[in-house]
């Protein structure tokens, strides 16, 4: 029990893929998780007759069997493909602006362009040119960046080099006049937490491209099924997992990993550590500033803590169609002004918009017959929640959630009356379960400066590796991929 080749701290997406990749390569691995179930964000909880999906809104990068995306290939390598069932969504999303707009985009390039033109005929040419640009950009990205073209140059990949670091708003302005059309095309900004004016075009273009080309997916049994499948694969490969057992300390000696001490005081000797915990708590709480090179702590300074969220998990005693829900994913807004929307992420003031996911449209078996499950999510920072006296917390939580329900009610009259179970998570909830600063769900902020063109993931200490949102852009696909990358680096180091 006391000696492992590698210890993985945290069984979130990145920790699970890291641990599974290691164990399947014959590395003697221990996985530590402070909570009682695997998954981190990729989990579920039960209230009444509902099992609520916590975090997955749309899985990107999976692709079909005929046209597999990077994630399907990753799942095959991790031995989980046959343990999972997937459900495909046929639309990417619906954009709804109160009294102004209601438009649904199919997960198909041609069909989406047609829908956009039908709603905004005057912008026909701009729409076509913008989608041409998005696809050319993605082509450059795949070939030049992911494909690691040794002859990469601005001459060979002009679209990528001209547009990658532009803010999305300026690119939208170049092609599109109507702010409602801009909002429609940029709806995915919520998945990164940056409105178009501070969202790199790289992030917006690649999200649209990946969701349209590989389609959005869900898991049967929710994202908890993925976490359990990964854990199962890890255990089958001989890995050891301990739940209700967080890591308290990483013992460093002379700049190298020596051991991990659990919250129960057990010391586990190891020379390789993958931390799926936040970079900030790993450095400052588990390792300690005194054991880190000055440079490593200084490298944190340009970063800032990313957004958390308020989510209202709703179990309804009706079918989606009964209250007019026809699309899985809706980005809703009252005014249609994106800057106001992100502004309200810093206060308890009335939320301006939200994202709504109904899980029963793609998978009618998701909830019991006659019921359905909807989550309402609003990005939100933790600061104002941290300032609350604890005795005011529940009231503040319900008040804010109630205003989110007002938006859902406005969009789908009858929504409130159908509520059978409701649970609310806040930045403080996420802090409790994820142990991230600010309850961040996406790691650091995702400005252009936070793109991995500028951030080095080389660890400051020998034997230490990172996985999860703090070293990737947030979301399922990137965090899952980050764990495997960390594991591969360890395997390479061990084989040396």
């Amino acid at each position, binding site marked *: 029990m006391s000696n492992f080749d590698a210890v993985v701290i945290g069984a979130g997406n990145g920790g699970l893929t890291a641990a599974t990749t290691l164990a399947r390569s014959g590395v003697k691995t221990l996985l530590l998780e402070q909570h*009682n*179930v695997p998954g981190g964000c990729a989990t*579920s909880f*039960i*209230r*009444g*007759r509902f099992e609520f999906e916590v975090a997955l809104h749309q899985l990107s990068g999976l692709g079909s069997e005929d046209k597999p995306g990077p994630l399907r290939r990753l799942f095959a390598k991790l031995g989980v493909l046959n*343990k999972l069932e997937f459900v495909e969504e046929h639309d990417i999303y619906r954009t709804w602006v109160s009294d102004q707009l209601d438009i649904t985009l199919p997960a198909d390039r041609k069909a989406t362009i047609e829908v956009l033109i039908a709603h905004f005929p005057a912008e026909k040419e701009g729409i076509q040119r913008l989608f041409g640009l998005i696809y050319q950009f993605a082509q450059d990205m795949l070939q030049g960046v992911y494909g*690691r073209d*040794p002859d*990469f*140059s*601005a001459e060979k990949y002009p679209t990528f*080099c*001209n547009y*990658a*670091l*532009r803010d999305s708003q300026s690119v939208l302005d170049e092609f599109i006049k109507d702010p409602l059309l801009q909002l429609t095309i940029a709806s995915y900004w919520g998945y990164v937490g940056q409105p178009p004016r501070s969202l790199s075009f790289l992030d917006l273009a690649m999200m649209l491209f990946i969701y349209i080309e590989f389609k959005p997916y869900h898991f049967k*049994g929710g994202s*908890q099924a993925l*976490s*359990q*499948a990964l854990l*199962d694969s890890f*255990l089958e490969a001989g890995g050891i997992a301990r739940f*209700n057992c967080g890591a308290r300390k990483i013992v460093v000696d002379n700049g190298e990993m020596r051991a991990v001490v659990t919250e129960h005081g057990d010391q586990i000797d190891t020379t390789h550590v993958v931390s799926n915990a936040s970079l900030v*708590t790993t450095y*400052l*709480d588990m390792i300690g*500033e005194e054991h880190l090179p000055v440079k490593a*702590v200084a*490298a*944190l*300074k*340009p970063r*800032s803590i990313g957004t958390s969220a308020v989510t*209202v998990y709703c179990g309804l*005693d009706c079918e989606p169609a009964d209250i007019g829900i026809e699309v899985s994913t809706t980005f809703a807004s009252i005014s249609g002004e994106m800057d106001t929307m992100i502004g309200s992420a810093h206060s308890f003031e009335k939320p301006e918009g939200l994202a709504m996911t109904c899980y029963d449209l793609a998978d009618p078996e998701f909830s019991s017959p006659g019921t359905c499950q909807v989550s309402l999510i609003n990005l939100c920072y933790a600061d104002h929640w941290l300032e609350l006296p*604890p*005795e005011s*917390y*529940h009231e503040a939580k*319900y008040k804010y959630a*109630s205003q989110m*329900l007002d938006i859902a009610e406005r969009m789908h009259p009858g929504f409130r009356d159908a509520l*059978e*179970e*409701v*649970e*609310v998570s806040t930045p*403080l909830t996420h*802090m*409790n379960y994820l*142990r*991230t*600063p600010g309850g961040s769900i996406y790691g650091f902020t995702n400005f*252009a*400066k936070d793109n991995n*063109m*500028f951030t080095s993931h080389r660890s400051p200490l020998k034997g230490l590796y990172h996985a999860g949102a703090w070293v990737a852009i947030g979301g399922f696909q990137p965090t899952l991929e980050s764990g495997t990358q960390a594991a591969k680096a360890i395997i390479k180091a061990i084989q040396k």
Partner: protein
Amino acid sequence: MKNKMTNPFEQVAGYKEIREEIEVLSKYGDDFTSQRGNVNATVDRYHPKRLNFQVSEIFTETALAKTFRLVPENGYLPPFQAGQYINLFVETQGVRSSRPYSIASAPNQRAYYDLTVKAVPDGFVSSHLLEDVKVGDHLSSTGPMGGFFHNPLSHANEVVYLAGGSGITPMMSMIREVTDRGLKRQMHLFYGSRNPDDIIYKQELERLAEMHKNLTVDFVISEPEDDYQGLTGFINGKLLQERLGDLSKKTFFLCGPEAMYKFCRKELEGLGLRRKQIRVEVFGPPGDVTAQPGWPEGLTADMTFQVKVSDSRTLEVSAGEPLMNGLERMNLELPAACRSGECSYCRVKLKSGKVFHAPGTKLRKSDLQFGFIHPCMAYPLGDLEILL
């Protein structure tokens, strides 16, 4: 990139400018070192793993029930929602175990939590608490948890409490909060007891009902003396309809012993209510698991089985007791909180063998797929192998 000498991204428009911005931020950006320990400190304020108490006072409520006033040793108690419980850890007869108890005091004061404990026949933990625990003793528990509380987002403002025996405790916290804070909620309590002497908080409830127009209290006595004046029998659908009138705009909260729970749940369902109107507190393991629907025929409670635990120990447990209790008797303590199958703290993987989960156990779909069980509500049906 293969060519490590030059960074190809330097050719991306805007790259140099962002590099310069990063240089500036490296000097003037956030100082994260000041945040050391902040995450754990915040989590401890809301969800401390353990609460350590001293018993400051013990009140005798009835011949069978006492209230224990617990004050925090570190001077701080986390907020909770009226109706939630803590899981109290005890050590008695050489066995470490625990039981969940609803907090009876109101959440608007957090100088102490009051727990009211009623004697359960052959109660392993309750008899220890009632007979052995004295003022000045130390106790520990989990933080507050549970989903039995008034949720203003989906519950009506008119609430009906159906309580039996010690099932009054979560309702008492709710009633105290509403009356203390002057909340607008309309409350009607039906409280079933065997005889008038068994009514816990009788005087306080009568006093509160007198003082507050929004609280109506009906005591319902099941085994009255011949001369008893008042409601008698069981709390049933007919009584509820007579006393309440229109039921369609009300939310019902139910908490009581197993027999009452089963009876009242059926009565409520017979009133044509929507499912959302009926809130039921979780219910621990059943008194007699072999009487539950689905229990295999021919398997008796006293049959014993071997449990192989991943640390290579083999322990003997009996079929009629939750696996968690059996393992505790063998000095193997699992993480525990709700002991009712809902919180999943005790969740373990079953490597081989079969268990029976008592009704009400909340297993995730993927737990079923990958063989995870909740030992606090799982009964062995044969020899088992579990992975801790």
